[in-house]
């Protein structure tokens, strides 16, 4: 089995390096095909591992080699395939295989075709390390690795200012969180003496709650950055500057869920500190609604989906924070499928619309893009959580968790957000695919994407539809390592009322969206309507002014302070002091050199003066000795 583990892990790396060989040369199809194939192999290997894990119920643990060892610190490259990581591996390899194949078509005309695949496969490799590592340091490798690849892929079109800016923003913001993560790791090491999950978690119950709390908080700060939780969320929306497959893979299905994975992985720790868990859940609920609200009014197709991702991550954190780790992981998986599907669909639309992103400028595309239309609609249904698609099973479960644990505020927030989700999802679908064909005004001739791209997407569609059915199998599998709490509402009636109520609420929201954006006439907004002038709209449209706040109160002061430090402090103070001392010495010489006037008379006077001075000193001293007895 170890062989399959290594195949699963390293196949993407080989693919990446292979593509990187061609990075500087013009487009070669093979640079896309080979990594895709290798990823497929990785997927197969993961599947075999999954089968193994399912069969035996055990985990595979390997230690490849030592990474760092000094003092008491010992960090190996160790990998573990257990129920949790194999789930993630499946999600990662599957979605990325799909995305790779899709990208062969999507990036068809791009100059950086080869480079794209190098980065993309490298990303998958990092993600695999992240999920498979058996220790915190290894996790951190993957953690930073995905950050790097995300930087490279967001800034893939590096000639675009906005893209590179977004890439740097994403990297730096992630780094802020990574510091938290790093400190968390230090805390783990100095308190447990090891960074291996197993051993560290084994020691933790004996530790002080305060220390554990700090540990939990710092590790979660790391998770907040990767999973773009408030207040470190702004990078995710900006990350949409990258090519759409990237958004699908990284910013929807995999990387952003790393934070959730971390919390799930560290469940023995978070079980010990329910207060932190509650905080995580509350933040998750807040983010769920917060992000959904921004999605309501946004006019950028990809950003809407990105906010939706953010919102769904909030859901996952609610589940994870409340101790329902398997639920979180289940939603993570389901979400990966339909969200990736949604993004890839959006990619098709973008291609068709020549990179136009404003859904108000589209409309009626269902006629020309049937396949995409079907897929995106179904994905949206899944996202909205309608029976019997994946979202229904996973998302409603989170609502139940909140309810069962008596966190009613969280529950209501999530419920309300479910409505918002349905609304904005179908607002998007309606604007893109229904109504008038507004794009004609702009002289665009849309066309459906390549067949094989649609075929590539189909596994995701399938899973988005059926994933819910795997719930119980899944439950049995992962609870081998995660707390096996089932969340049943005690009264059957309450359960049915809640479920049906939620469904009705969601359907109502969808209907409202259709009524507003599909059935009535839609104009391209120009800022003149009453709604656009309202405060709420502006607030939401400007993302609560948070990016502006960051720009004005962090970025700008930092820039100005840097400049001041350089010009005022370094040059005018520190360096000037050094030079000042040197100049002082030099100028002393310059100012006193006239003592050497060259005039013999003066020279003689100096001599006599020196003697006289000495004489007076002598007299003073002699008097002192005589009369004071010094």
């Amino acid at each position, binding site marked *: 089995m170890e062989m399959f583990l290594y195949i699963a892990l390293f196949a993407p790396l080989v693919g990446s390096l292979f593509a990187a060989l061609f990075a500087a040369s013009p487009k070669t199809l093979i640079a896309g095909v080979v990594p895709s194939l290798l990823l497929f192999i990785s997927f197969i290997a993961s599947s075999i591992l999954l089968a193994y894990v399912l069969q035996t119920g055990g985990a595979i643990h390997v230690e490849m080699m030592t990474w760092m060892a000094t003092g008491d610190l010992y960090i190996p490259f160790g990998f573990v395939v257990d129920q949790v990581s194999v789930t993630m591996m499946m999600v990662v390899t599957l979605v990325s295989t799909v995305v790779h194949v899709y990208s062969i078509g999507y990036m068809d005309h791009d100059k950086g075709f080869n480079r794209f695949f190098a980065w993309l496969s490298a990303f998958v490799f990092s993600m695999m390390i992240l999920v498979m590592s058996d220790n915190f340091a290894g996790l951190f490798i993957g953690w930073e690795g995905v950050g790097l690849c995300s930087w490279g892929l967001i800034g893939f079109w590096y000639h675009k200012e906005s893209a590179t800016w977004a890439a740097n923003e994403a990297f730096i913001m992630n780094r802020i969180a990574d510091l938290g993560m790093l400190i968390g790791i230090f805390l783990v090491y100095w308190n447990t003496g090891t960074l291996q999950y197993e051993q560290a978690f084994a020691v933790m119950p004996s530790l002080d709650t305060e220390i554990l709390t700090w540990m939990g908080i710092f590790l979660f700060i790391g998770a907040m950055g990767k999973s773009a939780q408030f207040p470190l969320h702004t990078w995710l929306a900006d990350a949409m500057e990258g090519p759409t497959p990237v958004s699908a893979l990284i910013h929807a299905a995999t990387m952003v869920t790393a934070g959730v994975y971390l919390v799930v992985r560290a469940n023995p720790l978070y079980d010990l500190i329910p207060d932190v868990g509650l905080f995580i859940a509350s933040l998750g609920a807040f983010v769920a609604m917060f992000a959904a609200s921004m999605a309501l009014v946004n006019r950028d197709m990809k950003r809407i989906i990105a906010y939706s991702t953010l919102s769904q991550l909030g859901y996952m954190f609610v589940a994870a924070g409340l101790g329902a780790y398997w639920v979180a992981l289940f939603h993570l998986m389901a979400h990966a499928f339909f969200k990736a599907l949604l993004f890839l669909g959006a990619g098709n639309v973008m291609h068709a619309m020549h990179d136009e992103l404003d859904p108000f400028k589209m409309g009626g595309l269902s006629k020309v893009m049937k396949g995409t239309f079907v897929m995106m609609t179904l994905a949206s249904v899944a996202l909205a959580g309608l029976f019997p698609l994946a979202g229904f099973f996973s998302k409603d479960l989170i609502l139940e968790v909140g309810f069962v644990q008596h966190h009613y505020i969280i529950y209501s927030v999530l419920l309300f957000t479910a409505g918002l989700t349905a609304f904005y999802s179908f607002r998007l679908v309606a604007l893109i695919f229904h109504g008038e064909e507004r794009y004609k005004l702009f002289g665009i001739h849309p066309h459906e994407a390549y067949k094989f791209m649609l075929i590539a997407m189909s596994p995701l569609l399938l899973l988005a539809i059926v994933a819910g059915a795997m719930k119980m199998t899944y439950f049995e599998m992962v609870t081998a390592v995660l707390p096996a709490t089932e969340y049943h509402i005690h009264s059957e009636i309450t359960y049915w009322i809640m479920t049906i109520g939620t469904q009705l609420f969601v359907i109502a929201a969808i209907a409202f969206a259709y009524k507003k954006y599909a059935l009535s006439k839609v104009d391209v907004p120009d800022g003149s309507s009453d709604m656009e002038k309202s405060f709420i709209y502006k607030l939401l449209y400007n993302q609560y002014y948070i990016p502006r706040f960051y720009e004005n109160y962090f970025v700008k002061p930092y820039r100005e302070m840097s400049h001041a430090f350089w010009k005022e402090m370094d040059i005018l103070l520190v360096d000037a002091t050094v030079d000042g001392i040197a100049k002082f010495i030099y100028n002393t010489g310059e100012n006193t*050199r*006239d003592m*050497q006037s060259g*005039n013999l*008379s003066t020279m*003689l*006077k100096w001599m006599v003066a020196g003697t006289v001075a000495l004489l007076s000193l002598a007299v003073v001293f002699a008097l002192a000795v005589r009369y004071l007895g010094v």
Partner: protein
Amino acid sequence: MEIGLNHYLVLSTILFAIGLIGVMRRKNLLLLFFATEILLNSVNIAFAAISHYYGDLTGQMFAFFVIAIAASEVAVGLGLLIVWHKRHGNIDLETMTSMRG
């Protein structure tokens, strides 16, 4: 009043002071040399007096040596002075300022 050792010493000191002042004030090289001669000779007086006071010949010997040295100094000094005068036509200290700083 009897002239004692102290009187000689005071005289010597006064002469020495005069010499010093001369050294400082004179701008004429020749007069400057005179001032240095006064310096040395003031010491001679004291040496002779002290020698007499102690009844020891060392002081007088010292005085002789000082005289001899003063003489040779004058020889060298005048030599330099003459050369200087030949070249510059004066023996004014104020003109000797080609090197400074």
